[in-house]
């Protein structure tokens, strides 16, 4: 049973008070593998931000100042079951006291809440969400709602805007993000190196509108913030698919779903193949263990099928071969072919194909069932293909199909285009 310390602190000043209370905390360890280095440790803890409103007579017409008493929690599990966690976090700091809200503005505090992170893993993240604990009224996610003195939600008054929490971005090892608490599992901080009791100042923003419910003195508002810490060290990523699975060379493709397993927040993805420069996926959005999103810049990209490789920060990689198809804007189109009749089996003849979208490196063949007559291409323009064929002496007579395949793999096939006599 984790410790749940309760801290109560009363402050002087205009009759307001501030409370720090720990509402709950817990640790969640997900067992991914029997091997030690295959564990993913997820530590979650919650704190609540509590506000007690000031006196009504402190409201002014243009600038209503409300002294706010708030609390953030210091949470640290005393014991970790089975094995030591790769990451531990706590929320500490002096807390926010006597925070004066100015309706009609966004109220900011960037000094009072400190995230303390210790991670033995090189890659870690901290996300936040409103878990709607303690029977918080639905429809109030991320927003401060009125509670009684015991911290129970009364369901009476709710602020109009959600709390905004931002991690610092000035440190090179952090990728701070600003998130609105109304989202789910939103990343506010991450690192690419192990840290030991790294203290990270969070910035709390609370927009307050004139139209917000009247904050009467003595009323209490709170929102419970759940912090989720994540450390890497798990299995190698697995790539299953990518949407879209093709793109036009020279264009920028928005990848809406690079799906797989064991992706990490700092995982990278590339299109790769032998002899070509990798094409990086510029990750956008939040990477989840099963999904990455981003953009692929296909400027100058060679056409054809590419492998898709995801690399986790710990070096683990996963590749699915020939998953992404870089194509020309259009497939080849066959408009005419000739001569349409052979001069007889065993003969060699010049042939020509006209159409559109032919590319250098185009391949042409005549087929009839399993029989193939390759066309030796001698000259190609975008609208014509010149070549020669030799009709094998044993070639079956009758109609043969014509297939033109560009070097990107796009092709067109015309049935019965050629007659072997």
């Amino acid at each position, binding site marked *: 049973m984790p410790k749940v310390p309760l801290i109560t602190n009363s402050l002087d000043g205009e009759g307001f008070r501030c409370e720090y209370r720990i509402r709950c905390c817990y640790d969640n360890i997900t067992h991914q593998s029997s091997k030690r280095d295959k564990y993913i440790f997820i530590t979650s803890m919650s704190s609540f931000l509590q506000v007690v409103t000031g006196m009504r007579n402190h409201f002014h017409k243009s600038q209503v100042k409300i002294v706010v008493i708030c609390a953030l929690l210091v949470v640290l599990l005393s014991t970790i079951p089975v094995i030591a966690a790769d990451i531990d976090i706590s929320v500490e700091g002096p807390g926010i006291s006597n925070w004066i809200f100015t309706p009609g503005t966004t109220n900011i505090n960037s000094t009072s809440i400190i995230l303390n992170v210790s991670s033995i893993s090189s890659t870690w993240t901290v996300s936040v969400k409103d878990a709607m604990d303690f029977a918080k009224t639905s429809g109030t996610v991320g927003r401060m709602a009125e509670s009684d003195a015991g911290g129970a939600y009364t369901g009476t008054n709710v602020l109009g805007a959600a709390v905004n929490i931002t991690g610092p971005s000035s440190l090179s090892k952090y990728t701070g993000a600003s998130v609105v608490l109304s989202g789910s599992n939103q990343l506010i901080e991450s690192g690419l190196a192990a840290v030991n009791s790294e203290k990270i100042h969070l910035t709390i923003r609370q927009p307050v509108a004139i139209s917000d419910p009247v904050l009467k003195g003595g009323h209490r508002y709170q929102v419970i913030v759940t912090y989720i810490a994540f450390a890497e060290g798990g299995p190698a990523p697995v790539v299953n698919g990518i949407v879209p699975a093709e793109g036009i060379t020279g264009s920028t493709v928005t990848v809406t779903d690079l799906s797989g397993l064991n992706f990490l927040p700092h995982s990278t993805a590339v299109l790769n193949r032998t002899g070509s420069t990798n094409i990086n996926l510029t990750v956008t959005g939040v990477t989840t263990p099963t999904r990455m999103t981003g953009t692929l810049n296909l400027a100058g990209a060679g056409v054809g099928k590419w492998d898709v490789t995801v690399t986790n920060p710990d070096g683990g990689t996963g590749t699915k071969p020939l998953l992404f198809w870089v194509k020309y804007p259009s497939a080849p189109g066959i408009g*005419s072919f000739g001569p349409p009749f052979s001069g007889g089996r065993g003969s060699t003849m010049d042939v020509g194909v*006209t159409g559109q979208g032919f590319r250098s490196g185009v391949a042409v063949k005549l087929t009839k069932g399993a029989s193939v007559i390759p066309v030796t291409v001698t000259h190609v323009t975008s609208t014509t293909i010149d070549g020669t064929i030799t009709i094998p002496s044993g070639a079956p007579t009758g109609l043969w199909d014509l297939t033109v395949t560009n070097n990107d793999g796009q092709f067109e096939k015309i049935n019965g*285009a050629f007659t072997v006599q």
Partner: protein
Amino acid sequence: MVTKMNNPPRVIMVIIVAVLVISFAGPVYADFPLPEVPGLVGISTVTSMDVQGIVTTSTSVGLQLGSHTLNDPPLENGGFLWAWFPLGPSGPRIDGYSVDPYVISRYKGAPVPPGEVQYTAGYNEDVTAVSGSLTYQKTMSISTGNKSAGEENIGADRVVTFTGGDGGRMTTREDLLLDGAGAQTVAANQVCCPFTGTAGPFFPPFCNIVMSGSSADISTGSISTTAGVRFISASVDIPVAETYRVNVKGVTGSGGTGASGTVGAFMKVNLQEAIEQEVPRRYVTDPIGYIPVKVEGLSYSETSTASGLIHTFTKDMRYQSGIRPV
């Protein structure tokens, strides 16, 4: 020679000028002449007779000229064979002919097939006269050289006058044939007239037969005929033509005002013409091709016959076909 007709029917028939002029102008519907071949042949005869007694004479001419081997069907189309797929994979293959530079380039080394044309012309004449007085004057000319408008490759002009005695009788028959058949032929460099345009690179196929002629079985009368066909010219500007004219009337001073007996003249025509239909293309950059499509058939037959005392029997028949009518 006694000129007498025993109770001839007192029928006076006057048929004045029946003319058939068939001309198809423009590049779509027409046959056209062939150029002469090396080794020209010219035959010219003049026959003159003034006879009391029995006369028989006959003439038979057959002239055949082709751009390729004669009598070796089927006729070969001009241009290179090519296949089009106007609807891509979901549509049919359409085979047609083309002289597009790209198509020619893929048949490199091979001259563009010009297309095959073949003509047969014939002329036959028979005269048999007994028991009477006959004068016969005929000029016959045959030439395999190029002819211009107004000239003929086979030409026959004759005047026959017969005054029969008792039982005297003359029969004569003369007919003219022009039979032309052409496959699709390449039009380039065949037209001299700079103002004669061609709708496409090919002249369409044709198959036209024209026959005309006359016959007579008279005891008295004078017959003049003019027959001519033309189908050999240096360029296709000159239309092919068949002309036949017959004029029958009485013998001056024979006591009558007309010919006595039976005369007839005929013309039979069967024409089949085509157009060149452009093959639909999937892309504008595809070569242009054509398919010949038969679009017209004409069958024409006209026969005129007169029996009795024939004051005048005249029939003038002309057939002309070419891209530039004259």
